[in-house]
């Protein structure tokens, strides 16, 4: 499947934007600038970007604790995201949510989620809204391999199937749930094999191959828009960092990190492919790299320079009885 050039450039830009964002988050976290828990998406960029390359702002998305990449791919402003991580008033959620609760309703981004398995039921909700309103909006529901053992996923897959909801369930199988390998916690080899249990199409694919993700998503999105119901895509991928910042990663196999950070890295593979096929030039890429680095520098500066919220904000955005 041919991807138009402007989309290829957009894809490269988004993948780099995620990568540089996450690298920088790791640095700023290390400096103590970012409080709380942070789960980095670096290494999995081809999944979020390959999927979101098929969407518009009107489409919905539910996410996970590892949500930065999903947000960037869906077009959420990185300045607002970085400011949110810093807990600043200019954050996309006014600093009240933080890394695990970044959301942007204007972009259809229904929130990162600190509860593993929290997203799939919400996805059925936006799917139901689209169906009820008769629009062609689709919902992407990202979840991890660990989340696939959560009952909410089962219930949501079944609901989406019987109601023919326009949802693409995307299992991001990065091999681990915290320190627990997928081959231990999951009773089947491929999560997508479970699609049959709901009478929906299921595909397992190389999640570090942008083109494979893009194509599978393209088909699933078309199905969903056409009212033919949900699909389940499993993208096998890997996280370059630990589960969260601070994880010693002793469970990882020797050489695994290196292999995924080099030959199996999704951005490197994408770059090699488009360069070797002459689809994009090195100069164009260098240009994008420059913009991306500038955007992240600017986002960090914006976050640092922004004020913290006024303490009165503690009591807004909720009915407070006492």
């Amino acid at each position: 499947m041919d991807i138009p050039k402007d989309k290829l450039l957009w894809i490269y830009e988004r993948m780099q934007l995620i990568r540089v964002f996450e690298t920088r988050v790791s640095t700023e976290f290390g400096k103590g600038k970012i409080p709380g828990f942070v789960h980095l998406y670096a290494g999995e960029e081809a999944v979020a970007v390959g999927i979101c390359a098929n969407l518009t702002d009107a489409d919905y998305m539910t996410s996970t604790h590892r949500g930065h990449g999903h947000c960037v791919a869906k077009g959420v402003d990185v300045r607002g995201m970085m400011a949110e991580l810093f807990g600043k008033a200019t954050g996309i959620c006014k600093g009240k949510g933080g890394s695990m609760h970044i959301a942007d309703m204007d972009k259809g981004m229904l929130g990162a989620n600190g509860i593993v398995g929290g997203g799939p039921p919400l996805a059925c909700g936006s799917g139901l809204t689209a169906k009820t309103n008769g629009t062609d909006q689709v919902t992407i529901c990202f979840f991890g391999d660990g989340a696939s053992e959560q009952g909410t996923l089962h219930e949501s897959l079944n609901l989406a199937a019987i109601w023919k909801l326009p949802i693409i369930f995307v299992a991001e199988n990065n091999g681990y749930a915290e320190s627990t390998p997928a081959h231990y916690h999951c009773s089947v080899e491929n999560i997508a094999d479970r699609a049959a249990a709901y009478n929906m199409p299921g595909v397992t694919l190389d999640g570090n191959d942008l083109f494979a993700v893009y194509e599978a998503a393209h088909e699933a999105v078309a199905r969903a828009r056409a009212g033919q119901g949900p699909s389940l895509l499993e993208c096998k991928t890997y996280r370059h960092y630990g589960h969260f910042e601070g994880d010693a990663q002793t469970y990882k196999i020797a050489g695994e990190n290196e292999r995924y950070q080099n030959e199996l890295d999704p951005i490197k593979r994408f770059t090699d492919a488009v360069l070797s096929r002459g689809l994009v030039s090195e100069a164009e890429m260098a240009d994008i790299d420059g913009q991306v680095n500038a955007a992240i520098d600017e986002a960090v500066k914006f976050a640092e320079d922004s004020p913290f919220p006024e303490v009165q904000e503690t009591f807004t955005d909720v009915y407070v009885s006492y």
Partner: protein
Amino acid sequence: MAERELNFGEALNEAMRQEMQRDPKVVIMGEDVAGGADVDHLEGDEAWGGVLGVTKGLVKEFGRERVIDTPISESGFIGAAVGAAATGLRPIAEMMFVGFMGVCFDQLLNQGAKLRYMFGGKAKVPLVIRTICGGGYRAAAQHSQVLHSLFTHIPGLKTVVPSTPYDAKGLLISAIRDDDLVIFFEDITFGGIKGAVPEEDYSIPFGKADVKRAGEDVTIVAIGKMVHHSLAAATELEKQDKSAEVIDPRTLSPFDEDTVLASVEKTGRLVIADESHPRCNVATDIAAMVADKGFDYLNAPIKMVSAPHTPVPFSPPLEDHYLPNPQKISEAALGLF
């Protein structure tokens, strides 16, 4: 006001019907809320209309796109209701018995209740969850619970416990129009209660208690079914020359502190009747509020009449012993003189 009388379920049904007519975004979802989904011979008709028949007839008027039967997947469909509310629908979800809320508790505690706050106000969750509560039906430990105290504890949720058909209709209309997640409790024993209910739609504001009976000597704050028991207790107290004021808060979150404090200022005595288990319940919540803000008004200890700290037993004599009743309430009140 029309003299027309409706029973409790009919009042709720009318509230939903009128709101669905008014606003096409209102949908109903839950197990057997229509019933018989995909059963050919029922055609447009329903099989059940909810386990107690409260949604009866709505599917005929609004169709199965708006009265949606769900599988027994409460996390799935309550979570879906949250997601649908956040994206523009105004769902009324029926969570059959409040005792089942445990199977979808995260959808309430961490999703529905918190989205608006965590997202810095950029989402709202206009969702009503209707649920059956209460003992007295011999339905045993899992099907006889009250649990409104759990939900009142959680910020981001509103909790409504009507005690009459009139209140039920007006409060449910308010709940449907509210932009927050509202849990709406319907006592299982209220099937037989009838009362005057206006035909037109009307709303009763949240956070406004109703003085169900005026009195001078003792204040009784009563929740749900306890309102009726407290009115019976008040009649009994009258015989002992004690005049009881019975206050029905109607909504627990928000809670109308002013009406309660003003009454205690007048009477100097407070009894709270709440069918909940006794620890960390709404009775303790109200007692604590008054022991703080109304301390100087009090002439006597605050008495709470609650269920004991045990699950609800099945056997009728045990359940009767377990439940608060008019006699326990009037005795508690008399003990303050």
